[in-house]
């Protein structure tokens, strides 16, 4: 459905996207993951025909976006980072305009009605867009992308600025749309991508550094399970005690999270289960272990580590796409993270 070959984009001297290639089959829901400024939006802008390429090509359903822009654009619904709204229009009026602009063929009123209901903005259809809150504007932007029922949806950070309830609603909506649409979704939040996408493409500094299923990436990235222990103790003594456990790579105090106790982030060496050892050590020191949890945030942290690496080769090394050259390098890396 979507085929990108050797895509590069240069802004003056700055290379925003460099030699990115991927293919997305019909019906796939793919997440673009990367920090701000990684080039996600640029790639999306090229796919939708808003920007031109410096090199390479993008095809939508066999139509090259540069050669057959109208046919390609007809198949795409695009929600840019900032929703493209005429703030002096009312919601329904604006969607009617988009309907006319896209030259949609279905009957107008039922189609717009359906979209209004789908993104839950039917109760604000007669309000001026400029009077709507950020969350509602985002949804009007979403509705705009859905007009004409295009096969491909390209959504640039669709949940930014929404409250948690709205985020869940939008995620559910994306999941529902994913059943009969091809969707590209960008985000810098890993958990969001995990929630809705089966496949993840990680982009950093304009390059594609990983293209895999979310599950595979998660296992690869979280090969070292860090633990968080909450212990009733004196901070310094326990730090020493934990550090001397066999198999522990590093221990960091996270400070006082609960009255009377301290939290410690314990990072074990690869493939070592140290939970029992930690428990024993705490008990042997006569202290009380309140909780011991797998650090669920570690996925985020590893992603951060991935995108904060000095260069993309190093990131690929972390992912295992390139053989690890020497251990020393990765170790300094992990210290930075803490």
């Amino acid at each position, binding site marked *: 459905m979507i085929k990108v070959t050797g895509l590069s984009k240069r802004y003056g001297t700055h290379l925003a996207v460099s030699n990115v290639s991927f293919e997305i089959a019909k019906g796939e829901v793919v997440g673009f993951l990367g920090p701000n400024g990684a080039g996600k939006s640029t790639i999306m802008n090229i796919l939708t025909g808003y920007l031109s390429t410096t090199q390479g090509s993008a095809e939508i359903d066999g139509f090259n976006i540069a050669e057959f822009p109208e046919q390609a654009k007809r198949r*795409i619904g695009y929600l840019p980072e900032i929703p493209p*709204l005429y703030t002096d229009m009312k919601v329904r009026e604006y969607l009617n305009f988009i309907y*006319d602009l896209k030259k949609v063929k279905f009957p107008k009123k039922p189609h717009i009605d359906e979209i209004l209901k789908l993104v839950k903005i039917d109760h604000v259809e007669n309000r001026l867009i400029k009077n709507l809150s950020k969350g509602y504007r985002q949804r009007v932007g979403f509705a705009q992308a859905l007009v004409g029922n295009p096969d491909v949806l390209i959504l640039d950070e669709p949940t930014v600025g929404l409250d948690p309830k709205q985020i869940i609603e939008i995620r559910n909506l994306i999941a529902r749309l994913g059943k009969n649409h091809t969707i590209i979704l960008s985000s810098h939040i890993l958990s969001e991508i995990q929630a809705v996408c089966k496949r993840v493409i990680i982009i950093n500094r304009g390059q594609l550094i990983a293209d895999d299923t979310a599950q595979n990436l998660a296992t690869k990235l979280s090969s070292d399970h860090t633990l968080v222990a909450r212990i009733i103790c004196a901070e310094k003594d326990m730090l020493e005690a934990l550090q001397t456990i066999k198999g522990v790579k590093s221990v960091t105090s996270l400070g006082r999270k609960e009255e009377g106790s301290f939290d410690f982030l314990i990072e074990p060496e690869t493939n070592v289960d140290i939970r029992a050892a930690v428990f024993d050590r705490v008990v042997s020191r006569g202290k009380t272990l309140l909780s011991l949890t797998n650090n669920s945030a570690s996925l985020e942290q590893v992603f951060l580590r991935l995108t904060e690496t000095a260069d993309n080769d190093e990131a690929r090394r972390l992912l295992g796409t390139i053989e690890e050259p020497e251990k020393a390098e990765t170790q300094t890396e992990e210290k930075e993270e803490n």
Partner: protein
Amino acid sequence: MTAIFKREFKSYFATPIGYTVLAAFYFFLSVFFVQIYSAGVPQISWVIMSMSTVAIFVLPVLTMRIISEDRKQKVDQALFTAPVSLTSVVLGKFLAAFAVYAIGFLPTVIFEAILMFNVTVNFMSYIYSLLGILLLGACLISIGMFISSLTESSVISAIITLLINIVILFDFAKLITVPTAENAIGKVWAKLVEWFVWLLEKLSFMTVFQNFGENVFSIADIVYFLSITAVFIFLCVRSLERKRWA
């Protein structure tokens, strides 16, 4: 194109811009008409020709946001990712502004009717002058639209368009006298001034525009304005296209 035209046209009247522009046109039209009526000169073409000065100052307001605002609000992403060509987007916007401008001259129909009941009038001179002012407006709108496509700020767009309009329409060339040459340096200077005057004359639409007021029908004059309009619409499309490659 129709969708863009409809939206743009409506938006002129969703904001005060459309009303302000029309109010200015109607005010000056009426003032000029009362002038000729009380002076007993039944020349509606004089009223229309005089409106060119008003158009210079009012049209920049009509065109200042036409494209710049879209980029500022990021709405251009919806327009340029829709299955329509850049040319039809630009044409839709142009026609909307032109429609508002043309509506500004509707009262002249009533004026002409009033005159027709009272005195014998030269109907063709009314048609020529109306054609002239509409062609001039199309030109100025396309120039203003091009300027608007170069910037994100509607204020900058309005000011630059106004300056260009003033250079184009005021006959500055007449104000400059070519000095008489006495020595070699004087001759060079005189030549330079002569060229400058020639350039100003060529840049000014005024000579061509005045033909329409003098009941001189000429296809060349019509083509002159239409081709300038086409060139600036084309430049506007190119300027938007260039943004994609930036």
